[in-house]
Structures are given as C-alpha cells and as structure tokens.
C-alpha cells in the first residue's frame, strides 16, 4: 500500500514539474502583439505564413493570425477584437469604412474567382459567354451547385453574381450550402460532382487532390481584390494602432509586394496573387 502511494506521488510530482517548467508557450509576454483577422484563402494557400514570418523578423512584433471568412473578420473588426484586417469583400468593406470602423483601407493584391465543376461539364458552363450565362445555365439544368454559405468574401461575391444573373437560388434543391471554408467546400464539390465558385489560389493549391476543372474564367466581374484595413482606434481604445499601421505599411512595401508577386510561381508555374499595392499608393 505504502510503496504504491509513493509511486503515485512520484508520478504526480514529475507531472507537476513538467507542467511548471518554462516552455515554448511562456515566451510571448511583454512583446508587442498584433491581432490580424484575415480570410482562410490567404492561410490555406500558404501566403500568410510567408508574409507574417517576414514581418515578424523585420519588426519583432508577434502576429496573432485568426483565419476566418471575410465576413467574420469584419465582424471581429466591428467589435474592436482585431487590430488589422486583410479581406476581400469590397462592397462590405466600403460600408465598414463609411461606418467609421476602419482608419485606412489600402489595396494589397488581387487574383480572380473561377467557376469550377466536374470535368464532363453537364451544365455546359464552358460554352457560356459570360459568368451570368454560366450561372443561368447551371440553374436551368438544376445541376448541383455548392455555396460556401458563410458570409465570406467568396460567398458574398457568389450571391452578387446570382443576383446579376437574375436567379434566386435560395431554397432550390440543387443549391446547397456547406457553411465551411473554401478548401472544404472544394472537396465536397469534388465528391458530389457539383459546381462551385472558388478563388484561384485555393483551387490551385488543392487541384491535385480534386476531380474538378476550371470551367469558366476571365470575366471582368470575377476580379477578387484584397485590401488591408487598420481598425479605427478612436472607436476602440484597446486597438493596437501602431502595430496595425506598421503591418499595413509592410503589406504595401516593395519587400512584401515582391513576396506576394512571386508566391506560388515555383510550385504551380503561375503566381497565385497579383500585386496591387505600392508604397506610393494613396490611401482611399
């Protein structure tokens, strides 16, 4: 009895010693921190890792990246829970700025949205002359279409494209919402042989795992612009405006723009994003 009690005691002691020992989690205190709320597309493509580690190395500011949809990122910004946003939902961003939540909004980069679907293309999207026509064609054939359904930038874009096409897909049996990020939605679309709207970056990053093809692209209304927004410290005193400004400046600096412009080139043979910012770009 006694020996066994000692054994448990020793084990508990070791456990406590291990938990109390200084470790990798104990080193972040006191440093300047920055909460960046951004979209899953920047994280899933791998671009974010490159940008954040370069920024951290240059400034010593620790970036807490929260990867959510553009809608949720802006919701965090509206509550002052983030310091800076990197999002792609231009219309909602403008409302956000008008309501005074953002201090400054600057263009960073763009890529484009593409319509992907099963290679045999049952809804003949390939033959469409415009994205409107492509969507009408899917709707009229009632072929399964997957929507993100998560208020992300891609979802908002998709809804505006449907309304331009004069189709209201809500409630239709062929129109389904995954409520998940782009990567997951593409995988579900691949499994269900459905069409979906994707950003080019996430699709390229995943394409070797998917049985989906790009069926429609190049329409001017498919442009996907990313902006960096600093949260207005006048609204939320706890916002770290200094670090947010540094991060925003960094994203439009030559160093970051070079990183963005060449990202993915080696792996996919084409860049995933095109640069749009620059040090001389006027804020708007």
């Amino acid at each position, binding site marked *: 009895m006694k020996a066994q009690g000692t054994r448990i005691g020793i084990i508990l002691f070791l456990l406590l010693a291990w938990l109390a020992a200084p470790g990798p989690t104990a080193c972040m205190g006191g440093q300047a921190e920055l909460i960046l709320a951004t979209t899953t597309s920047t994280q899933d493509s791998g671009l974010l890792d490159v940008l954040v580690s370069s920024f951290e190395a240059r400034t010593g500011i620790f970036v*807490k990246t929260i990867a959510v949809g553009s809608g949720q990122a802006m919701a965090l910004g509206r509550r002052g829970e983030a310091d800076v946003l990197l999002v792609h939902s231009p219309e909602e961003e403008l409302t956000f700025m008008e309501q005074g939540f953002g201090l400054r909004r600057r263009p960073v980069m763009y890529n484009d949205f593409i319509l992907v679907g099963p290679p045999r293309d049952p809804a003949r999207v390939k033959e469409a002359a415009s994205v409107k026509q492509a969507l009408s064609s899917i709707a009229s054939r009632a072929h399964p279409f997957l929507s993100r359904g998560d208020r992300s930038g891609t979802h908002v874009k998709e809804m505006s494209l449907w309304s331009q096409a004069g189709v209201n897909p809500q409630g239709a049996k062929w129109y389904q919402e995954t409520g998940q990020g782009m990567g997951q939605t593409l995988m579900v679309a691949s499994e269900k042989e459905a069409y979906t709207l994707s950003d080019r970056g996430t699709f390229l990053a995943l394409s070797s795992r998917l049985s989906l093809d790009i069926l429609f692209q190049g329409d001017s209304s498919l442009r996907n612009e990313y902006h960096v927004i600093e949260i207005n410290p006048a609204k939320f005193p706890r916002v770290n405006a200094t670090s947010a400004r540094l991060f925003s400046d960094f994203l439009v600096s030559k160093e970051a723009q070079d990183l963005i412009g060449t990202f993915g080139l080696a792996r996919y043979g084409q860049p995933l994003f095109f640069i749009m910012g620059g040090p001389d770009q006027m804020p708007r």
Partner: protein
Amino acid sequence: MELLLEGLSKGVSLLLQGDPEVLHIVLLTLRVSGTATLLSLVVGVSLGALVGLSSFPGRSILMSFVNTGMGLPPVVVGLFVTIFLWRNGPLGALGLLYTPTAMILAQAVIATPIVAGISIAAMQGLSDKLRLQILSLGATRFQVAWILIKEARLQLLAAVMAGFGGVISEVGASMMVGGNIKGYTRVLTTATVMETAKGNFDVAIALSIILLLLAYAITLVLTQVQQKGHGA
C-alpha cells in the same frame, strides 16, 4: 488506402526527424490538455467529495447540473469563453483570448464536469460503514474525505483518463479561443483541421496518428498505475 500509408510513413518520418514545428505542437498539446486535466482534477474531485459524501438541500439539482455538464458540447464552451475573454468583454483586460491560457481555461471547463461526475459516483460507491469506522477512530472531516478519496483512487484515475481523453481530442473550443496561431496556440487537433482544409491529407493523417499515439501512451501509463493499485 494509398493515402493512409502515405500518411503513416509521413507521421513516422516527422516523428523521427524531430521536426521542430511538429515537436512544438505536440508539446503544446500535452501542456494545454495536461494542465486543464490537472485543474479539472482539483476542482472535480473536491466537488465530487463534497457532493458524494454529504447531503444538503439542492444536492440532487447540483448533481443533475454536473451530469448534464458531462456532455457539455465543446463548441458551446468555446463560444462562451470567447465572449468572456473578448477585449471588450468582462475579462478583456486580462488579454487572454488567443493564448494557450485561454485554451487551458476552456478545456478545464469541459473536463471538470466529467471528473466531478465520475468522482461523485465513486464516492457514493464506497461503503457507508467505512466512513463511520474512520469517523469513530477520531478523524476530522478533512481526514475522512482524504482517506475516502484514496480509497476511491481506481475510479478517480478512470475520471482523469476520461477527462484527459475528452480534452486532448477536442477541436471546436481550442480553435475558437486559441485561434490556431502558428507556433503559439496550434495544437494537434486544430493543425489537423487546417492541414485537411489545405488538402495536405498526408500531413493531416500524420498528425492524427501522433495524436492517437499520444493519447494511447498517456492512458497506458495511467492504466498501469491504476491496475498496480488494484493488484496490491
């Protein structure tokens, strides 16, 4: 099938290479879930001893709360902990959101009812005569409780295993309150979700295998302690 084998070999090679990022993720997972389990042990066993060994008005209501809490959905815990820890929330001044501490808090909230529930059952399973006998030998209330807790150690270790198993495999709350920040709050479950979203299924499978091995190793040690106690 091919993918599973690919993941298996990737997992083994990640472990053997001692990839620093994976190592960090593994250590953080252990630290967060281990600390949360210890916290839940302290609170849960105390509560278990209190409720299991005494009677007071409202006791059955408290027990029904504990029993409901044993099935507390982690995402619900995550949501409420997030709301409390928001910068502009009630505990915002502490600056805890998106830190490992926040994850420990959320996981402790998830594990405590599990530990408490099993502890209550363990205490109630002890013979009443034992308690009276200890009391008759002149023990104080605290000493009685301590002896009975030692007496129920087999079931209490089962409570620890259930609590630890619950939190180390949990993803919803950890994602919400921790934010899956690289090198800081990324644990095995949240990293697995992210790698799956990226389409890196081999890495995701590798991480899953590491998680399973880890959970198994810890449970193995605890089971050995438990069964040795049983044999003695």
